[in-house]
């Protein structure tokens, strides 16, 4: 390995990147704008669910009951409907996500001391949204039942409602959210976006950079030169790794100063792990560029092999713990999952080396495998 040759190649590559102004600025602007859009844009909380009411009783009690829904911040009241057919159309056209039907004689039945069923219709197209809505309905219903039962028991036992309250709801729940007490979703989204952006951008930059030489034919200059395979790969990729490392710092600063996410972990460990991660994702780009012949296909494959795992197998939207065995196995095959643990550990949990070294080691191993695979796939001799 001749360091001088590596240096020269890296310098040539750097020049080439720098001279393509649009490409160079996009290499920094794209991650920053992605971070801004997602940071301000993603909200996973299910709130303001649009709903409609069909009140067939129109009594004081049904109004009380329905007002629990109307006043809730989780639901967004869209108005009353006259019959069930109207509900059909509203849900089919996605104008409302859920409707509640209070049957006739609601008040009469309850006052006479008998139970009654209330029907809620939920749009199931988005299953997780449907189950969260179901949870909200159940919670509001429970609150109303507790009121009813308190009133009923105090009447029956002849005591004040305050005394009965202890009987009706005996267990208090003390919920403690660890690592993110106010459950600010931006705190967890900002570190997760670092993982996401650093998985998508470095391979794209790299793959395009290498395949461009192949497509334009300038790679033949390399083939006929004295530079060795290893020197070429390292020199070629060095500038891309540097760009990605700068992006790590930029995104880290954005997460802390723009989005206010607390960084509690060990910064040295975090940066070492991050450098390993971007070297690893750059390696993905390298491997892709050796398989693909044209820039279009390089781009497609890169988007393919990075976006799907970045969204689905990283813990970004779907927690690893919730996956079935097959998906969990696939998740372990992608580097995203390990870095998710490292960013969340560094930002929110304040854990460092001791807890996370296995993840960093996994990334390192992954990097080595990728680079070795690329090394063995790259030939200076053109196949006949």
């Amino acid at each position, binding site marked *: 390995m001749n360091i001088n040759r590596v240096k020269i190649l890296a310098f040539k590559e750097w020049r080439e990147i720098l001279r393509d102004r649009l490409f160079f600025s996009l290499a920094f602007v794209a991650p920053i704008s992605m971070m801004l859009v997602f940071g301000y844009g993603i909200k996973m909380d299910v709130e303001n669910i649009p709903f409609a009411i069909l009140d067939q009783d129109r009594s004081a009690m049904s109004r009380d009951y329905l007002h629990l829904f109307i006043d809730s911040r989780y639901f967004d009241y869209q108005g009353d409907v006259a019959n069930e057919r109207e509900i059909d159309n509203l849900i089919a056209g996605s104008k409302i996500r859920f409707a509640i039907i209070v049957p006739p004689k609601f008040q009469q039945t309850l006052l006479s001391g008998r139970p009654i069923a*209330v029907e809620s219709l939920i749009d199931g197209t988005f*299953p997780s949204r449907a189950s969260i809505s*179901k949870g909200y309905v159940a919670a509001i219903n429970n609150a109303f039942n507790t009121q009813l039962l308190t009133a009923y028991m105090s009447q029956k036992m002849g005591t004040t409602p305050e005394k009965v309250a202890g009987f009706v709801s005996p267990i208090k729940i003390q919920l403690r959210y660890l690592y993110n007490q106010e459950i600010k979703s931006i705190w967890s989204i900002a570190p*997760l976006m670092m993982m996401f952006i650093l998985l998508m951008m470095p391979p794209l930059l790299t793959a395009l950079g290498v395949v461009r030489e192949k497509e334009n034919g300038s790679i033949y200059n390399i083939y006929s030169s004295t530079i060795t395979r290893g020197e070429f790969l390292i020199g070629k990729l060095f500038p891309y790794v540097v760009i990605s490392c700068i992006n790590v710092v930029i995104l880290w600063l954005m997460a802390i100063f723009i989005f206010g996410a607390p960084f509690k972990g060990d910064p040295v460990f975090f940066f070492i792990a991050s450098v390993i991660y971007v070297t690893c994702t750059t390696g993905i780009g390298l491997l892709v560029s050796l398989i693909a012949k*044209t820039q279009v*296909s390089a781009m497609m494959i890169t*988007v*393919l092999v990075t976006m799907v795992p970045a969204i689905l197998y990283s813990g970004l939207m779907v927690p690893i713990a919730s996956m079935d065995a097959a998906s969990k196995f696939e998740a372990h095959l992608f580097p995203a999952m390990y870095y998710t643990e490292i960013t969340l550990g560094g930002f929110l949990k304040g854990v460092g080396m001791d807890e996370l070294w296995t993840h960093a080691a996994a990334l390192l191993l992954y990097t080595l495998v990728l680079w070795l695979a690329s090394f063995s796939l790259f030939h200076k001799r053109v196949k006949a």
Partner: protein
Amino acid sequence: MSLMARIIEGKRYHWWSRMAAMTGKELLQLGRDTVLVCAVLYLFTLDVMMAGGVKMDLNQGAIVVHDADHSMASRELIYRFQPPYFKMLGEILNEKEGVRLLDHGEALVVLDIPPKFQHDLLQGKPTAVQVQVDASNTILGTLAASYSAQIIGQYGFDAALQRMGLTGESLEAVPMVDDRHRVWYNPNQKDAWFMSISELLTVITVLAMLLPAAAAVREKERGTIEQLLVSPLTPIQILLPKVISMTLVILIGTALCVGLVLYGFFEIPIKGSLPLFFLVTALYTFAMSGLGLFISTISRNLAQAAMLVMMIMMPIILLSGAWTPPEAMPDGIRQAMYFSPLYYYIEMAYDILLKGAGLAVLWDSLLSLSLLGSVVFIFGVWRFKRQFG
């Protein structure tokens, strides 16, 4: 037939035959890039299948318990934390152990039951159960917290009823509102139905922008655009075949995906009209290809085009309601969504495929998509014509 008419007809014939030849050329060029063809096939089949296997809900959330009471009541409460939402990993002896498990991400929830839990419950004295949740991933944390609260709340309510002697038949004489919900269109709430359609729509979006943009930029980068410009082709004849051929590829891929994956593999009951769905898809693909053409005019090489596609595509996908509920978006972004073609396309795709909605319900979304699509497409064509006209 008069001479004039024959000339006009001849011209018209040439116009169409040139369009056909160019469309054929684009398809052939795409077909020769084996890796690209494989990637497109993969996206429409295996990728959608993989996405359908992912569950969005809390599934087997790891929970450990610190039980300081060891009574019938505490055991009954612990027993209620069951799959599919929770997976009880076992008991821990002290709180430190719980914190350690949470730090390592080995447990999601630590349940802490106080001493004298059963005693207090029987006495009607208030008692408190502590639930510690790892909220570093807020989505997961919130789900786990809400399910735990539901379970404990229900247990408390049941215990209260039991204590007051209100069980079984005597419950019939208590005023209570019973919540009966019906979930429509996906009664068993299979995540695969939602996820696979969502992924298909994402794939269509990516390809609808990327393929025409790439086809146009490649000609620029290789210099073959010069050959086309000196040929008797008008700019429209150069650009429309690119859009038409790529739309064709996308429609074939979509048909494959709907037939093999959505209907065949996941057994989604396709309720609405498939011709309407393909019509909407074609319209949407045209709109997005306008955006692709616009990108091809401002970039000089594919690398630039790829970066621009990424930059434009990501916000469109993530802010369209494909992954996140549109109602939950903050105010400014909610309004911005009305300018995203994908927002309307997603609404219509779900409404047609799962809900069986027809034109009567969807006309307003269709109108919005057509208007927005025309504007975007005409803008893209205008830019292209200005550059190459």
